[in-house]
């Protein structure tokens, strides 16, 4: 018997999958590249240059990042529109997570749009008009100059925190949505694992951002 797959079923499953792969994987790669700034501007600039030398970079970037990102963002907004939050009547942790997942999603919609136009394309007149990707030799300086503007740095801190939350909770959601985690104990244990993962990822992400304004990051000179 043929399997009838409804539109919603396919779109939701693609949404859940795209959040982990490629977007979650990409975030890890992104934080890895950012962390290159810990050992100095030259290492970071070389890492940016290396990324630009990936074979078929245009297709990798479009198929691996832009299409999944736009799909995940736009369909995520569609899902968010369906929500009828009732957190005051039912104030349970998972219900708050449900709401926060949607709030961080909306924050990310605006933050990532700004971030991509800003650094990837250099299309924010008055702030930055140089594409980091196309000028690897200036990459560190472009970021460093912007991060010294306090409001911009705060926007990035909020953006990083929202992204990390969205991914860490998103991994948990993926595991239940795809039937990997089932029972109550497994839900709890994978929940702890995702919190631990999120805390580590948040520290890595913030430390990498700080490395652009303080040599060596938070623990500069110690490690």
């Amino acid at each position, binding site marked *: 018997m043929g399997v*009838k797959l409804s539109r919603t079923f396919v779109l939701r499953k693609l949404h859940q999958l795209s959040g982990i792969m490629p977007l979650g994987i990409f975030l890890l790669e992104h934080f890895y590249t950012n962390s290159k700034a810990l050992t100095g501007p030259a290492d970071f600039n070389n890492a940016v240059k290396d990324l630009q030398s990936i074979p078929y970079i245009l297709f990798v970037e479009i198929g691996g990042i832009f299409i999944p990102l736009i799909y995940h963002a736009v369909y995520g907004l569609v899902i968010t529109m*369906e929500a009828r939050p009732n957190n*005051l009547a*039912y104030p349970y942790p998972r219900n708050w997570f449900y709401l926060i997942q949607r709030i961080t999603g909306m924050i990310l919609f605006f933050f990532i749009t700004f971030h991509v136009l800003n650094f990837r394309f250099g299309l924010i007149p008055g702030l930055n008009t140089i594409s980091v990707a196309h000028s690897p030799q200036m990459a560190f300086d472009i970021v460093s100059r912007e991060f010294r503007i306090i409001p911009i740095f705060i926007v990035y801190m909020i953006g990083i925190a929202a992204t990390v939350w969205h991914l860490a909770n998103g991994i948990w959601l993926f595991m239940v949505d795809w039937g990997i985690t*089932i029972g109550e104990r497994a839900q709890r244990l994978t929940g702890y694992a995702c919190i631990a993962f999120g805390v580590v990822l948040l520290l890595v992400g913030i430390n990498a951002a700080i490395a652009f304004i303080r040599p060596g990051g938070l623990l500069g000179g110690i490690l």
Partner: protein
Amino acid sequence: MSAHAVNQKKSNRVPPKTVEIHIRRRANPDSPQYWEVFELPYRPNLNIISCLMEIQKNPVTKEGNPTTPPVWQMNCLEQVCGICTMVINGRARQSCSALIDNLEQPIKLEPMSKFPNIRDLVVDRSQMFDHLKQVNAWVELDGTHDLGPGPRMDQEEVQERYSYSRCMTCGCCLEACPQYEGDNYIGPQAIAQVRLFNMHPSGKMTRDERLEGIMGEDGITNCGNAQNCVKACPMGIPLTRAIYEENRETVVHGLFGWLKS
């Protein structure tokens, strides 16, 4: 708050002299909702139903205006039929088991918001029955002849199936669900019944039909994992477990089913 804590709080409290009840009413399906306030003398061990019966006997509002007697549904009065479910102080629960001593006053009674409101506290929950039909929530048996004793189930499965079988179709899970609105999502109630019948040795034979019942536009993927359902369920049914088991079944069926054809 645990039941113990509630009882402790209760014992330290001076019983009130009166019970004030606000009811969100509606005269007929097409007319607007309005609030009416009633007050009745307190006595120990009152529940919502006994208060409503008192109001029904003498339908006069707190201000002294005569009104129509409020309408609600009830049947078993021991929290097994589910028909008396309403929203009490913001949360869906059975009014028969809602004791006045455990509730904050003034008590607010509202009809469930996720179903068509017929009159006062009465709602039409037939969409839940439609959902059960949509997922073939039964075991196909042809004829009345003796089919023998049937296959055996292990104790673990029996226990799990028993918990799903306790569903009384009250609708608390749907009222508490932030994703359930109108007919856009089939909801935990029907998904748990898919699990119940897909675990049954004879029910398994029509497993794919049930899976496709929850893989449509209003299907299982609309779950947002807020997990209010499992907290709101008065029968303690492991609804999230049922949803996640069916997530696994539908993912395998959806992703790999076509490879069998």
